[in-house]
């Protein structure tokens, strides 16, 4: 069982795991860029472990892909760091003071939307979120809405893989997909009231 290939693969996978661990712990973007280059090397090593003519033919495209991605990312890093977040004067908007009533109404709408689930539920929950945001003013954090949208997509992918690989758990997949569309529609609907677009370009 433990022939040369297995031992080599084991060592390479351990070094890849160490690289990924460092990547997960690092928070500085530039250092992560350098670490990702380090993580790329084990993938080349796995190909090289084939030890045949085929490995030689395969390692070149692998290397090219890795280098081109690294070039694109470093270019992106330069552009990204060069950009300045310009302060924009926010337009004069009539803001309704945050009282308890809007909160209660939106909580009711969101809860009812979750009970309905699916597309309709997403619409109603989104309406609740719009109402809440409109009653609060415009300094909202879009990151949360974006994150909800992203998470809904990830939930769909999980549901999709469950459908394909573990069809016996189809009911869980249906429920996951329903939650995903609820989140997505709610996120999209809640954006309707928040198109000020003043906080960035």
């Amino acid at each position, binding site marked *: 069982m433990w022939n040369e*290939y297995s031992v080599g*693969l084991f060592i390479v996978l351990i070094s*890849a795991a160490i690289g*990924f661990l460092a*990547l997960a712990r690092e928070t500085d973007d530039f250092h*992560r*860029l350098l670490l*990702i280059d380090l*993580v*790329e090397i*084990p*993938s*080349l090593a*796995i*190909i090289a*472990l*084939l030890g045949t003519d*085929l*490995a030689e033919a*395969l390692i070149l495209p*692998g290397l090219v*892909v*890795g280098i*081109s*991605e*690294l070039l*694109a*990312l470093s270019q*992106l*890093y330069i*552009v*990204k760091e060069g*950009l*300045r*977040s310009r302060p924009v004067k926010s*337009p*004069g*908007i*009539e803001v309704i003071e945050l009282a308890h009533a809007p909160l209660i109404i939106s909580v009711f709408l969101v809860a009812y939307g979750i009970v309905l689930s699916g597309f309709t539920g997403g619409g109603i929950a989104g309406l609740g979120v719009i109402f809440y945001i*409109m009653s609060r003013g*415009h300094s909202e954090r*879009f*990151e949360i809405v*974006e994150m909800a*949208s*992203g998470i809904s*997509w*990830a939930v769909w*992918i999980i549901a*999709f*893989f469950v459908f*394909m*690989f573990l069809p016996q758990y189809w009911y869980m997949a249906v429920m996951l997909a329903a939650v995903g569309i609820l989140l997505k529609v709610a996120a999209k609907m809640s*954006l309707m009231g928040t*198109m*000020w*677009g*003043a906080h*960035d*370009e």
Partner: protein
Amino acid sequence: MSSVGGATLAHLPFGDIVIYITPFTLTLFLLALVFTILVIASRPERQLDITFGADRIITKETGLTEMRFRRFMAIACGLASMGAMLTGDVFDFALFTSLVGITNVGIVAAVKSRHVQNAAFQYGLVAMAGTVPLFGAAAMVAATTGTLSMLELAKEATSVVPFAVKAFLVLGVMGEGMAPFYAAKAEMFRAPGAPYVIMCSLSSLLIFLRVIEVVLTV
């Protein structure tokens, strides 16, 4: 050959690499083709910012060079997806998939906004990390079975590719196809990326569909 994609319609031999066309791969290929043509034909969307309470509407124009770059990236992404849909070789599939990843980074990064570019950078890191299990899986397929051709692998009665290798392949494709998770940033403020941002979602959907077929066939 029994395949999840249906009966094989045709074979296109390119030397060692034999492309097989099933109703499944043909459908996905046509989908990628149609969307690429739509991207070629479409004009960039103009963003309207409506200011509530002030009765003011601001239109944002997209510059010609920026539009050209985004369209080029979207077309490249369409071509890469088409390749990934048709290929009959595990390593080529890995290559096309990572190409989809690179072009998706380009599509998201073309939006000139700091937080979108931040998202593009983070996505790029994930896509690069995804190449490790992706190419690793392709190399391990060759190491364990001695071939990379999906057609050869499908001939075996029981699957000869170990489960861990298949899991690696799916993991790699998930890393490359993570674009919509980050494209949400570009998509949320619809117009900065529209309509080219649609290629992010479409290409990742297509590679997810294809990897299912690959994993269940080999």
